[in-house]
């Protein structure tokens, strides 16, 4: 869902309403900040060259 573009407040409000999120204005302001952080993280990870790498499989435990 996150994109390379900076998330606008209008876009955030549209998305959160679709997801059924509501709250006081101060709560939503803080949530908006958090979600922008999520988008920035996505951009940061997108910049990593992951070609050839499979997703980490933490649930396959080592054995003797």
């Amino acid at each position, binding site marked *: 869902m996150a994109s390379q573009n900076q998330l606008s407040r209008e876009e955030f409000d549209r998305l959160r309403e679709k997801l059924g999120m509501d709250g006081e204005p101060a709560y939503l302001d803080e949530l908006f900040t*958090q979600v922008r952080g999520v988008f920035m993280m996505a951009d940061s990870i997108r910049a990593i060259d992951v070609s050839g790498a*499979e997703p980490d499989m933490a649930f396959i435990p080592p054995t003797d």
Partner: protein
Amino acid sequence: MDTLEICYMSAGDLSKLVQSKEISPVEIIEAHLTRIDATEPVLNSFITLLADQARKAARQAEKDIQAGRYKGPLHGIPVALKDLYNTGGVRTTSGSRIFDTFIPTEDCTVAAKFHQAGAILLGKLNMHQFAYGPTGENPDYGHMHNPWNPDMVTGGSSGGSGSAAAAGQCTITTGSDTGGSIRIPAALCGIVGLKPTYGLVSRYGLSSLSWSLDHPGPMTRTVEDTAITMNVIAGHDPKDVASAKVDIPDYTSALTGDVKGLRIGIVKEYFEAPLDPQVRKAVMDAISLLESMGAEIKEVSYPMFNQSQAISSTVLMAEATAYHRDLLEKDGHQLYEPVRQRLEAGLFISAAEYLRAQQARSIFDQQGRRLLDEVDLLAGPTEPVTAPEILASKVMAGEQEVGVVGALTQYTRPYNINGFPAISVPCGFSDDGMPIGLQLAGRPFDELTVLRAAHAYEQANDWHTRRPPI
């Protein structure tokens, strides 16, 4: 023996006295209950105190030991568990009033192992709600307070575990570590905290924050007590899908005091991040001491360290939201707002982004393993700062103002991503008397080397013998 003296004795020392019948488990438990009475109004380490149950168990332990049925080094020793470890018949809240009356029907694997070893459960420890935060704030059961200065956070999420061990309320405590939640309070409260290798200690019966990042582990005042505890709680558990089938050594065999020939890598990127100069100095002094003891010190580079926050946060937020999705929909309005916000923000992470973060995690892991071909351990600060004030959102790391959440997790998250064992051991105090931690990380399942270096360093200092003013 003086109450306070009993409360600050290590499990290693107490167990010798218990075995030789010089001290009774009843005396030990009474001493700790007295200590809890005196300090709990300030610290708020416990959510549930099991005074009567502990007294009864102590009387039974005394009887068994008198009758020659000594079970081992944890017999009669007080243990307290973070309140997301399920305990049969004892409420387990995960730090939320939503689960105020939840009483599990069976013990988690770790609790069952402690019980088998004869340890005495003193109570369930306060924690950041659902383990989703690094400070130790909790509006439902009250914030946790640092024994070295009650205006400051304990660190989290296993904050009650940190304060209880540091203040002599309990000999052995446990935490769970998803982004640093064992090592953060260990560093900020001045104790030892080990995040074992992923899969070494069973997660069965623990409330999850992030399946692929969660690590249960011990929090104690000495490295020896951590080793003793690992001897009890480590091992394969068929009830945990991620549990590893590996040989379990005697962890106390690592406590040789010798670091000669150990190759310790100093990750240069750690020292380029925001870092309090007093912390930097304490950690560099610790590394110099290890070098003077015979360790070989080498600067190394972990370039992907700079992406560790993004990788870890993406995986953690997506998994935490998936785990708590039903709760969020049903009881979201009852959650601590910062926790609710983090859970809701996780809904904005797509499956593709989650998987890309897991791909990046694989590369991060490989880079870490290559580093550990060059050296035996990686060293650095556990925390870039000492404990911030309770409810502060920003903290100064040297001359730079940084967010508390990001700062407290900046050095701990890498080892949740790659699953390597990592320990925090006290390495000094700031000018205002707050503890500082040295972090040492090793190869997967090589806890012996991590414990060996941490113990040798500990024994060359007296940091672990200092007591908070409370």
